């Protein structure tokens, strides 16, 4: 069987019956529970860390205290991890937490492993600044492995897709214009999104990285993505605002690549 959780909400059915009074009741009971539980054992789960006070590491967050990736062009074995619940993110194993990571953000959260130390796992984070990393307790993670690796060569404006180290596809792509370059370094596939408000691509694959020259774009935080483009004349050119525009054939291959897969962007 497939045990990949399919997220479903009963809100569609409950919204019709959940009156404001019901919402008040829910809040009252749950706040009451929080008060009573926190007095007894609420802190045990996170080693004394109050998760409510920590910023969530999402594509919208800025985490200046996050340690930076020290090997930004290095491939890994492909290990990816999924936090089973909201977890504190630490700057070093055993040190204080500077952020938290949630099990879902753009669908389920999957992060690439870039380091191990004892019972701790270092992952790339989807927040600014680019190359942000953090340490999580391994025991609180679901571990999987992706056979894929995506390489984007800004200089030659090509994207390579590798599986188990073998090249399965290479395409001419559009990269960031000189004034809005695609940031280089190691990032990852953060989400797989169908945006009904966008017509340029049937699928958008946001990455963990952000434009270094645009603090925001189109109402978002300047998130870089892989996506299609209706005008094939852009491929092979540096014309985007930082995203990597790929041909339809490439997008079709990339849609099957697991979230958390490394995307290594270099200058070559």
């Amino acid at each position, binding site marked *: 069987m497939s045990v*990949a*959780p*399919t*997220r*479903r*909400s*009963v809100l569609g059915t*409950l919204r019709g019956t959940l*009156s*404001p*009074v*019901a*919402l*008040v*009741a*829910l*809040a*009252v*009971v*749950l706040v*009451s*529970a929080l*008060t*009573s*539980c*926190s007095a*007894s*054992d*609420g802190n*045990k*789960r996170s080693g004394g860390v109050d998760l*409510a006070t920590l910023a969530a590491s999402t594509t919208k967050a800025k985490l200046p205290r996050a340690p930076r990736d020290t090997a930004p062009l290095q491939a890994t074995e492909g290990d990816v991890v999924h936090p089973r619940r909201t977890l504190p993110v630490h700057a070093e194993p055993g040190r204080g937490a500077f952020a*938290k990571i949630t099990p879902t953000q753009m*669908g389920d959260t*999957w992060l690439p492993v870039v380091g191990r130390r004892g019972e701790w796992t270092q992952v790339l984070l989807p927040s600014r600044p680019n190359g942000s990393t953090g340490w999580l307790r391994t025991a609180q993670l*679901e*571990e*999987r*492995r992706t*056979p894929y690796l995506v390489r984007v060569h800004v200089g030659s404006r090509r994207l390579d897709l590798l599986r188990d180290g073998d090249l399965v596809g290479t395409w001419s792509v559009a990269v960031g214009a000189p004034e809005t370059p695609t940031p280089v370094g190691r990032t990852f596939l953060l*989400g*797989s*999104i169908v*945006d009904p408000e*966008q017509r340029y691509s049937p699928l958008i694959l*946001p990455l963990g990285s952000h*434009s270094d020259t*645009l603090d925001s*774009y*189109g109402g*978002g935080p300047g*998130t870089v993505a892989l996506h299609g483009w209706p005008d094939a004349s852009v491929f092979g050119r540096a014309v*985007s*605002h930082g*995203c990597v525009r790929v041909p339809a054939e490439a997008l079709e291959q990339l*849609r*099957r*690549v*697991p*979230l958390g897969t490394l995307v290594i962007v270099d200058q070559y």
Partner: protein
Amino acid sequence: MRTPAKAGVAGIAAAVAALVVTAAPTASGDHQSGSSAYGASVGGSPGQPAVESDGSTTQTGGGHVPAQLGPLVAGGVMDLSAGNDRATAKVTDLTLGSEAAKLPQQLRDGIAKLTQACTVVEQAGPADQVLEPLNEALNQVPAVGAVVDIPTTAAAAEFCTGLLDADIVSLAKIGTLQTECNDQTGTVTLTDVEVLGAPQPALLGEVAPETQLLPEQLAPVARITLNHQTVDGENLTVEGLRLEVGGKLVAVLASTTCGGPVQHVTEVKGAQAPQPKPKPKPAPVPVPVQASAPVTG
């Protein structure tokens, strides 16, 4: 090859009232895999009552909801079973949100002001004298102002009528919450669900994995997940109801694991070098979600 279960839920049974454990042989088979089940876990502590089987026999047990769950969960009779790669955990007559809850002072004050504001609404005062005090009172009930807004006098009247009719500290009743795992398949089934006294037919029968019970707006306050499934190596764990409050795990009700519990590494003197870590399972193929994605284009 599945991971066989090892005995190791020691000390749990003794803490549970009315726990009864019996054993019966399972049907014979070439491959036996363990399983386990527990009724309730509070704040990440070991579940209780609990049963565990190495697959050779079927273990059954039962008990009551732990008293530590206090104002949140009351009542509840548990029946547990664990056998050859199959386990069930059933909780009956469960009440979420107890009438006996001792509310914090801040909540009591907030509700008192809310009730006071509603008396103005009943007197059919002018809109500006009705809505502002009412919404102000809502904002003083912790976590409520962010999710409830009363925009019109008609909505105010409806809200206040509902407030007077409902017992807002008795949240929901569940006739039966049953969790089952069978090899790598997990199901959660509900019967007789009422929220604030109103039957909820949409929540009867089998519940889809990862069903969120609470409105999204309440997520910063709490999440109640029905049928939460996780895979750890060869083991599938299915949690019937999982409650997180303020980002912290508060309780899990009716949990089953098939394939045996998570193996713990034990250091043995003179042991050989540890075996290399097994290669993780393949990562899942993503399922696109519909959302707004303002990326850099």
